[in-house]
């Protein structure tokens, strides 16, 4: 037996199994494709906002204070990042904080407005944050500052005017009218603030349009799970066969190389057929992503090229998983769980930029994460040598480990 005849045998084997593998891959592609498209179509990501819930604990006797709070949650641009809640008692406010209904509780002490009026800085606003130091606290402090600024400038303006009018011969009625006039001018200025800027949400996910992010995530998840469609290739492979092949001179490295090639070819044919179907849908404008809206063919071809590289790596990863998990009970379930976990951390289901920093860093360097980086390069057209190098390194490493695992398997007779 030579490596060539071993390869021929494995090829024949995958050809026999291929109808089942292909059918399973089509069903799987259809299921996640339909689910993905439906999800994407029914979710307008431009309207999705991420808001913090902020609670206020204060008295509402002062009209300015009440109005300022209302501005924060409804008129000012801060409305895009906060929902405001008002509490009458300290207990209610802290309960809400502990129950995670609000992220921060702002306690405005009695006499705060009077202190503003008389430029006394002794009673300060206290801010209780539920989470750790970081973005929440800083943003909330900024919100409070905006609120304070509004109050301070308005109050200070009115106070100055009142002060200036002390020695004038104006009647109280005229003074009140002037006060009201200034107050309305402030209000108009505040109301017009929101019109100074126009916010447009492009809706980016990890540097791609949300639809492209979705597309990448679905394609990668499909690629990872595609290996499970070829699981039959691993089910009936007996260690005795590898042993006898070894005794005839087919080394573990040759065995792994030939088997991996067959496994990869099956994955390649299935996925290229699926990609072709996706291309047809793109060309018919039934689905699409912004990045491919012009020059569809060359861009899709570029994407397909990157996809094949990703497939080489992910196939080697899953091949290794199935190889090393020989002899482990529920090995396929374990492989499935590993792949799902890796997929989540790598940003297949949710933009990686939304994940906590540690998870983001881990996700970036996982083999599935590197595949994500490379495939997103296929969408954006931005080549990244580091990612490509990592992809190649992972592929070589996985195959080398698989060779070592096969050697151990043959020597110990693990089946």
């Amino acid at each position, binding site marked *: 037996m030579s490596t060539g*005849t071993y390869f021929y045998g494995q090829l024949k084997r995958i050809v026999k199994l291929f109808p089942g593998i292909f059918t399973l891959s089509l069903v799987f592609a259809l299921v996640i494709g339909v689910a993905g498209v439906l999800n994407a179509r029914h979710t307008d990501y431009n309207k999705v906002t991420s808001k913090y819930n902020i609670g206020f604990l204060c008295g509402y006797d002062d009209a300015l204070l009440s109005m300022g709070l209302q501005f924060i949650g409804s008129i000012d641009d801060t409305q895009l990042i906060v929902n405001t809640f008002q509490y009458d008692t300290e207990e209610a406010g802290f309960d809400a904080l502990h129950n995670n209904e609000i992220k921060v509780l702002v306690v405005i002490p009695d006499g705060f407005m009077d202190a503003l009026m008389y430029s006394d800085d002794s009673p300060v606003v206290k801010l209780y944050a539920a989470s750790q130091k970081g973005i929440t606290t800083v943003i909330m402090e900024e919100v409070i500052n905006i609120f304070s600024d509004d109050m301070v400038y308005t109050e200070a303006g009115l106070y100055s005017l009142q002060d200036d009018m002390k020695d004038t011969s104006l009647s109280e009625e005229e003074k009140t009218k002037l006060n009201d006039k200034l107050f309305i001018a402030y209000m108009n200025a505040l109301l017009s603030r929101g019109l100074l800027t126009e916010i447009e949400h492009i809706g980016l996910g990890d540097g791609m349009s949300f639809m492209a992010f979705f597309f990448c995530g679905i394609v990668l998840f499909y690629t990872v799970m595609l290996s499970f469609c070829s699981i039959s290739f691993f089910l009936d492979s*007996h260690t*005795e066969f590898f042993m006898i092949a070894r005794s005839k001179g087919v080394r573990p490295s040759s065995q792994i190389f030939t088997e991996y090639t067959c496994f990869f070819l099956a994955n390649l044919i299935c996925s290229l057929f699926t990609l072709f179907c996706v291309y047809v849908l793109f060309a018919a404008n039934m689905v699409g992503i912004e990045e491919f809206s012009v020059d569809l063919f060359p861009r899709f071809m570029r994407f397909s090229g990157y996809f094949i590289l990703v497939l080489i790596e992910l196939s080697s990863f899953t091949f290794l998983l199935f190889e090393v998990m020989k002899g482990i009970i529920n090995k396929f379930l374990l492989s499935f769980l590993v792949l799902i976990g890796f997929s989540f951390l790598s940003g297949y289901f949710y933009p990686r930029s939304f994940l906590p920093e540690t998870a983001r860093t881990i996700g970036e360097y996982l083999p599935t994460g590197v595949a994500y980086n490379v495939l997103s390069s296929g969408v954006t057209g931005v080549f990244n040598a580091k990612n490509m190098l990592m992809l190649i390194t992972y592929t070589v490493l996985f195959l080398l480990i698989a060779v070592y695992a096969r050697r151990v398997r*043959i020597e110990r007779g693990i089946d």
Partner: protein
Amino acid sequence: MQISVNDIKKRYGRKEVLKNVSFSASGGECIGILGKNGCGKSTLISVLAGILRGDAGQFLIDENDVLKEERIRHEKVAYVPQGTPIIEELSAKDNLSMWYGQDDLKKQLESGFLKVLGIDSFLNVMVNKMSLGMKKRLSIGCAINNNPKVLLLDEPTAALDLKCKEAVYAYLKAFRENGGILILATHDIYEISMCSKCYLLKEGILEEYTYNNDMTDLMNRL
């Protein structure tokens, strides 16, 4: 033809499984390796087959150390493991095609060892539809593709019915008559009685044993 196994050693961690194992045989002989489960019989066969690397020792076939000269080992030694080293999704013919050239396969099926093993009767049957006996015969058929001079068998007829055993024994007999050397790791009394020389492997040491149809004696010695 002469074979000589000299001072084979094999250690798994702290456990020394084979301690200077040595024996020799001439063409037409059958060597039986006996011992209780886990004593190292399969390890010895695996080392001789080149699957496991021994820590020391030689396996000489006509003065060539086939543990070092892989090419000669592939030509002259065949190994049949305990299980069924064949591809389940393929037919018997497809499996044999991996091991034999087209002409050679035809010849063997018509009048060679494959005929003796009776493989020609189930050539187009898929392996996953075969009985254990058919699988075993096919395994032997695949292993002997190179017309070997030394055949290493690890419990070759375990779990086979009498008819299948008969086919395997017929082949083994023919193999010996053609000057081949058999090395069997076995528990089977009939196979033991077939052997021209028997060895007991106990705590890593191989010692010669003469089987005189006394099971009690064999049991006590194991």
